[in-house]
C-alpha cells in the first residue's frame, strides 16, 4: 500500500521534476522527503509531506531536514 502511494511521487521525481530543475529550498527535496516519510510512517508520513510542502515557501530559509531523523546521513 505504501509503495502504491509512493509510486506517483517516484514517477514525478524521475520524469517531471528534472524538467524544472532544482527548486526546493530544503535538502533532501520535498519529493525525496515524501518518499522516505511515507515509506517509513505511512499515513503520518503523508501529513508530514504536506507540512513539508507548506514549509517550503518563499519566506522560508530552507535547510537540512530528513523525514527519518536517525537515518540521517545514511539514506
Amino acid at each position, binding site marked *: 500500500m505504501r509503495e502504491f502511494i509512493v509510486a506517483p511521487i517516484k514517477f514525478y521525481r524521475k520524469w517531471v521534476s528534472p524538467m524544472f530543475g532544482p527548486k526546493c*529550498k530544503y535538502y533532501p527535496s520535498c519529493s525525496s522527503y515524501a518518499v522516505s516519510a511515507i515509506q517509513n510512517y505511512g499515513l503520518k508520513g503523508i501529513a508530514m509531506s504536506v507540512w513539508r510542502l507548506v514549509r*517550503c515557501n518563499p519566506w522560508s530559509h530552507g535547510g537540512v531536514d530528513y523525514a527519518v531523523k536517525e537515518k540521517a546521513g545514511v539514506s
Partner: protein
Amino acid sequence: MDSILKPLYIAVSWVIVTIHKALSPIFGADSGVSWSLAIVGLVILIRVILIPLFVKQIKSQRALTALQPHMKEIQKKYKDDRQKQSEEMMKLYKEHKTNPLASCFPILAQAPIFFALFTVLNGIGKNPPVKHGVLTQEDVVSAANAKFFGAPISQTFLGTDITTVKVVTVFLIALMSLTTFTTQRQLMLKGMPKMDSSNNMMLQQQKIMLYAFPVIFAISGVNFPIGVLIYWSTTNLWTWGQQFYVIKRNPTPGSPAYEELQRKNAKKTGYSESPTTDVEEPIEDLKGQRKQPKKKKKKNK
C-alpha cells in the same frame, strides 16, 4: 471540491469579465479578440502579482556572490560526497538567511487558478453552456462564440470536428513546447553554474526531458479548451521573457552568463585582469590536486 474552488471560479471569471468589459468598446463585445485578451490579461495580472516573489529570489541569488568563497570551499571539501555537499550548502544558505531556490510555491500557487480557468472555460463550451462564477447568460453565450484565429476558445481538440480548432491547438502546443524548450535550454546553457562531471548525468537527463516536452504538451493539450492553451502559452512566454531579462542583467554567480556580464563590465571600466580566472581556478584545483591534504595546497600556491 467544488465549494472550495468556488471563490476561485468567481475571482477568475470576474477578472476575465472585467477586462472583457473594458476591451469591448475597442474590439466589440462578441469579438474573440476581447475574450482572448481577457485571458491574456488574467495571465499578466497573476504574473505581476508574483513579481515580488521573483525579485526576492533574484536578491537572494545576488547575495550568493558574497558566499562564493564558502561555497567553493564546500565543493572542494566534499567533492566525493554529493549528499554531504548538498547538506552543507543548505546549511550555509540557512545560516546566511538566503536561499537561491524558488521553492515550488510559484508553480503550486498557479495550479488552482489554472484549474479554475479550465472549469470556467469548459463550462462555456458545454451545450447548453454552464455558468461559473460571475458570468451572466449573456457573457456565456458571447464567450462561447468568441474565436481565436477562427477557433472557438471554449472548444477542445478532442471535443470537436472543427478543423480550425485542431489547427490552432496544434499551433499553440507547438508554441508552448518551443517556449518551454528555449527557456529550459537557455537556463541549462547560460543560467546555471558550471558543472563538474558528477552533475553530467543530471544534465543528460534534462536533455532527454527537453525532448519529452512536446509529447507531454500534446497529450494534455488535446484535452484543454483553446482558452486554457492561450493562458498556458502566454504564461510560458512570460516565463521566457523574465528569464531572458535575468540572465542578461542579473545572472547567477558562476554561470556562463555571469562571466559574460563580468567580461562586458570589465571592458566598460577598462579593468584589465581576466574576470574568468576567479571562476576557473578552483576547477583546475579540483583536477590537479585531487586528494592532497589541505596544507600542501596552500604551500603550492
